[in-house]
């Protein structure tokens, strides 16, 4: 006699359920894109001088050189673009970094990228007399790139494990922070400039700056999305990833390159804004689950929403001056983040 064995299907994994869930997620992605558009429009309109939406339209597409047109084209639009670019870059860099290190504490600056940038900028200010922001950019970017390579080599390059990479990154960060503090304490002019660079701000955006960082961020975005599948496999551990046909060492090098491009460019453009890269992946994972195919696009759309939203807030609350976006992001986003963690079961990596 044949026993009829019905295949055991865990709840929520039947094809229909998966399809339904993916449909919901895709709709959510569309909503996130819409939200980003709304926030971007608001970012162009709101500030020390309010620009009505029809004037925004006028400034964007029928430029005549009036005062509001100049405000829109030369100040607000570059600032908004920079916010979108760096926001997306930081969100993606944080997600990739946490997947690479399998560590929820990993922020994009973990591999010494922020501290490398800070060390290079403080050297530029103190020893070479660099004072312009467009001058900082190349120093910051160079510092970030050099340090991330150094960390990877010290962390054991091919035989690197997540824990060793994380420890090597923090050790290098500690060494560089010691250097930055030493320079700041012996050169008070450098301290004066650095304390404003360190908080992170979008206020200095202009078209040149956006043009400088955009190619790097674009390359980083492409690289990050190309790595979705191997990174997904890596979160299971190196052995499992190898069994699934990916090469962990290669993935790690490419992932590190993506993080350096994204986070290095973002840090170069507006200073170290740690919070966005650290928190957005956690926030996103709490409703998408750990699958990077969904986490990455959501992070790329929602991180700029957070960055631009808090930038607008910083312009409004302290009018006519403003609060730096790095400060507001953490002050607003931090409590939000803690509330999210308390309400939901946190999704692991």
């Amino acid at each position, binding site marked *: 006699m044949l026993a009829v064995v019905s295949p055991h299907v865990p709840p929520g994994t039947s094809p229909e359920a998966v399809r339904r869930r993916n449909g919901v997620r895709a709709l959510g992605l569309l909503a996130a894109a819409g939200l980003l558009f709304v926030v971007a429009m608001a970012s162009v309109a709101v500030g020390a001088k309010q620009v009505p939406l029809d004037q925004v339209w006028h400034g964007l597409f029928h430029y005549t050189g009036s005062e509001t047109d100049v405000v829109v084209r030369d100040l607000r639009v570059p600032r908004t673009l920079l916010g979108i670019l760096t926001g997306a870059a930081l969100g993606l860099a944080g997600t990739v970094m946490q997947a690479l290190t399998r*560590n*929820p*504490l990993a922020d994009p600056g973990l591999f010494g990228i922020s501290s490398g940038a800070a060390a290079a900028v403080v050297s530029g200010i103190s020893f070479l007399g660099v004072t312009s922001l467009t001058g900082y950019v190349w120093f910051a970017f160079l510092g970030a790139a050099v340090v991330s390579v150094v960390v990877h080599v*010290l*962390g*054991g390059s091919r*035989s690197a*494990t997540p*824990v*060793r990479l*994380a*420890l*090597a990154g*923090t*050790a*290098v*960060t*500690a*060494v560089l*922070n*010691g*250097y930055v*503090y*030493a320079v*700041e*304490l*012996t050169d*008070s002019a450098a*301290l*004066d400039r650095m*304390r*404003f660079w*360190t*908080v992170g701000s979008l206020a200095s955006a202009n078209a040149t700056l956006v043009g400088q960082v955009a190619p790097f961020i674009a390359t980083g975005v492409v690289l990050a999305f190309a790595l979705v599948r191997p990174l997904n496999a890596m979160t299971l551990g190196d052995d499992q990833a190898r069994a699934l046909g990916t090469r962990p060492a290669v993935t790690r090098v490419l992932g590190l390159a993506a993080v350096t491009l994204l986070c290095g460019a973002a840090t170069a453009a507006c200073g170290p804004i*740690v*919070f966005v890269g*650290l*928190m957005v992946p*956690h926030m996103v994972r709490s409703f998408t689950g750990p699958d990077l195919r969904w986490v990455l696009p959501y992070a790329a759309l929602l991180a700029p929403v957070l960055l631009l939203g808090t930038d607008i807030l910083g312009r409004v609350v302290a009018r006519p001056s403003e*609060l*730096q976006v*790095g*400060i*507001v*992001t*953490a*002050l607003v*986003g*931090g*409590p939000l*983040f*803690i509330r999210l*963690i*308390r309400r939901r079961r*946190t999704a*692991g990596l």
Partner: protein
Amino acid sequence: MNVVRTPGGFSVRVAPRAVLAVLLLAAAALAASVALIGTGDYPLTPAEVVRTLTGGGTPAQEFIVDDLRLPRVLVALLVGAALALAGAVFQSVSRNPLGSPDVLGIAQGSTVGALSVIVLFQGTPTAVSGGALAGGLLAGAAIYLLAWQKGVHGQRFVLVGIGMTAILTSVVGYLLTQADLNDATRATTWMVGSLNGRDWKQVWPLLAVCAVLAPVVLSQGRDLRMLEMGDDTAYALGVRVERTRLVSLTAAVLLTAAATAAAGPIAFVALSAPQVARRITGSPGPCLTAAACTGAALLVTADWASQHLFGADRLPVGVLTGMLGGCYLLWLLHTERRAGRG
């Protein structure tokens, strides 16, 4: 791992390498202390230092050693040990090598407290210490309460901690941009962590805190090791998980806050000392005594090195702990790889 049995039926497990490591580390800390006491505008040889400490020096030497340099060295030893112990506890509870008090918000709480006093009230050094103590304790309590949901789960504790760190760091950034340049310089000096001009007034409270709390933390060492294997395993092995966590975290927060109040948030000792100790002793779990000795040795050596490299009191010790601890940890990671371990 050897076992020592007594005729009465008691037995103690002894790990020879760990015992040797602890002895060597303690000896290194003491040697560095003697060297540090001998360093300054009026140099003393190690023999003179030891003679003065045991009561056989000239009045001038006694004044210099007992009133000026000994308290500074004691503060360095105690702060190093306290931070390292706290770091070991945090890393065990969060089950994460990056989970130290300066990553999870306690040090940032102290910094906000101290900077508020400096920037908003231009307070005295004593008031700054008070602010740091209050800030650290408040941050610790807030993180524990916010992470509490029928128990403090390790992962949630870590996430709430980094959320808190982000908020507090931005407050620090805000305070720094609002300060005038003098206050900003003073604040930065405090934030780096310094041992300059520490006297007996800082030693006694710190010593009292360490004397009470260090045994408490050490008594939890065994349970913490079980806790690293995960809550369920720890329960199964008879550990009262929630109580262990509460007791050891409270002690760690108090230790961090007291150390920070005495010397500022000295970077990286809490993070690196337990990791270095773990690699020196070759122990799989947290090795609390070794961590405390490593922290003390690291801080005293850093202070000695900063006085020799940059001249007396030019740069605060916090600059050097990061550099020394960082380089040493990197070297350990490197040799570990070459030896094919880790």
